[in-house]
């Protein structure tokens, strides 16, 4: 029974805690013992992407320290995990960079940890719905997460319809969503329109920030299926007894 430290991410912690709760339920359904290191805060990606690497390094150093004692770290976000994998060793130097590499080696995105790390494709959930999957960029391109969420959802009985241009960015892009709302919004519209053509009940993805951007736009336009994190959807199909 592996011990897993949950890296919940600040966006999930503050805005959609249900995704965190769902992550815990899925990991436990897969036989893990979950711990939550309460000292964790944010991975620092907003600062890094904004061109403020010193500020990002402050948060990176803190996260490295918080998760150092644990064997396995899992987060319900491809983007935050990609930050640890790709940028930490570049933001930090010397011994800190070595510690960052050690953290990256044991830090996993949730879907790929379940499907590839544990080999648990069937978590015991049942989903009776048609879904379409948007491949969030950092999970896809920095971590290679593509099949894992689809396999997990299919094993739960969900009907998968491929999203046209599933690998095209939704337009969120972190600080970009604030600096360039004029481009971010039409890109969200493209994604939502593509999702609408699939006839799916849910637009599923693995990064909460992208989903909030899509949901915020959908509230304005009324177009497209409801965006949902795959962990939340999958955990909703777990038997009620499973905590």
């Amino acid at each position, binding site marked *: 029974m592996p011990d897993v430290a949950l890296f*919940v991410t*600040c966006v*999930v*912690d*503050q*805005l959609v*805690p*249900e995704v*965190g*709760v769902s992550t815990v339920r899925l990991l436990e359904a897969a036989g893990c013992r979950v711990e*939550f290191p*309460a*000292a964790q*805060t*944010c991975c*620092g990606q907003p*600062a*890094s*992407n*904004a*061109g*403020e*690497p*010193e*500020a*990002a390094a*402050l*948060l990176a150093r*803190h996260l490295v320290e918080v998760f150092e004692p644990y064997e396995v770290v899992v987060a319900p976000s491809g983007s935050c995990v990609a930050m640890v994998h790709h*940028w930490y060793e*570049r933001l930090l*130097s010397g011994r800190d960079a070595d510690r960052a590499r050690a953290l990256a080696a044991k830090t996993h995105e949730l879907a790929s940890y379940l499907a590839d790390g544990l080999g648990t494709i069937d978590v015991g959930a049942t989903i009776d719905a048609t879904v379409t999957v948007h491949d969030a*960029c950092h999970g896809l*391109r*920095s*971590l290679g997460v593509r099949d894992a969420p689809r396999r997990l959802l299919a094993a739960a009985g969900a009907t998968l319809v491929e999203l046209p241009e599933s*690998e*095209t*960015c939704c*337009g*969120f*892009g*972190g600080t*970009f969503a*604030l*600096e*360039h*709302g*004029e*481009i*971010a*919004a039409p*890109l*969200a519209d*493209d994604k939502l329109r593509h999702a609408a053509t699939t006839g799916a009940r849910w637009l599923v993805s693995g990064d909460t920030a992208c989903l909030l951007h899509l*949901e*915020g*736009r959908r*509230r*304005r336009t009324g177009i497209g299926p409801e965006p949902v994190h795959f962990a939340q959807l999958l955990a909703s199909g777990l038997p009620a007894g499973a905590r």
Partner: protein
Amino acid sequence: MSHGVVTPGDSIRERAANAIDDPVLQQAMRNLDVRLPTARIVADHLPGLKDRAAALRRETLADLPGWLDRAEAALTALGVHVHRAETPEDARRIILAIASEEHLTRAVKSKSMATEEIDLVDALEGAGIEAVETDLGEYIVQVAGERPSHMIVPAIHKTLEQIADVLETRADGPLPADSEGLTAWARDHLRARFLAADLGVTGANFVAADTGTIVLVTNEGNGDLCTIIPRVQIAVVPVEKVIARFADLATLLPLLTMSATGQRISNYVTMINGPRREGEIDGPEVLHVVLLDHGRTRLVGTAYEDMLACIRCGACLNVCPVFRRISGHAYDAVYSGPMGKVLTPLLSLAGTEGRDLPEASTLCGACTEACPVEIPLADLLVRLRADLRRPGAVDPLPSPSRPAVSSRGSRSRSPAARLPGEGFDSRVWRLPLASRPAPWTRRRVAFTVWARIWARPDGYRVSTRAARIASLALGRRWTRWSLPGIRAWTETRDGPLPAGHSFRSRWDKRERGAQRW
């Protein structure tokens, strides 16, 4: 700049908004969709080719001055006059001097980004030399008084109807809005210009350092005509176009054409080995090569060196979600799309151009994935965002010593198992970020204060609780408020509502033994 763009504006934000509000432009940009799969074809079917090409480009960059000297020697041996131009002004001066010395009056020009970079057509016209673009797309934008919006498809921002309207201004009667009819008209029309020209201006896709061969890749054969008919030819060649060996073309040519247009080879490949010799029936009598530096060699050895590996295929533009929406003119620069966002500020010798371009990226990484020569474009954008805020940052950081070109561990993995941009040991990853201090701007203060608070668990807890209380007190109302600070989000999207309880407070509840948490 800002001349000849269909989407004007003072910032990329303004120009992008204009582009998105232009329904005809949006309709025209859909023509780009057919090019979307080119990068995927290369990645899926020619992974080995991509690997070899990336290595060949780095080989040249590892000793760019040396390969340039060898190329110059080989060109000179063939009877080519070689000039070195440090700046666009130098290049224009050299070319106008040649034109004046040779009494040239009519120029035909094949497609070349380098000549855009030095504003050559304007310079020639200013000197009283008629200069006609002969690539059909370039000709269309020239007649329209615009600049190209895509390095491979210069008039991609125009619909067929708009193109017919533009060309009609040069025709005797109405033209049909179909591509065959328009092409046939342009072919006839341009033929007369070719025959009358005494100067052919070209760029070069590659120059082989061993043989001195100048290589032009075109689909319309206009490159051939520009080099066969006029008495004098001038090729403007950016320094990074030099390749070590003629034989490298076996790798680089198909990679370029596959990435650019999905063709295994372009319709025409023109290879020029010096001016016309005794007994030859065509080719220029006089051939000049202007090697253009324009801030390039100063990038060698810096974190931005990889950018010089670029072969101008346009694959990163075609896959870029931002480019596909805002089109090339929104960048208000010679080079647009992801590579333009990186290259424009780097080439700006005054340090003033394109400074807001790196911000206009979602950092989705599609460009890095598409690049056939493994340039980590998204990483370079992140780095530029940091470096452009630092004094003198446009002179990129010099590296203390040049490490030998080594491979990252991941290189030993098969191409298919690698992540995008992982194939090459890029300098952007070897040089530390932020080795130069940034000035204390408001933005930097804000990020630093935030990071200092959030690097402490209690700081995070207190600040997020305060934000939650404020937001919950306001309810859903604020999610559409247009206030400074949140307007950037709420103008186009509803703001996200924080949950009633954070994850950590629910976890605490569970720790206290609650069944439902």
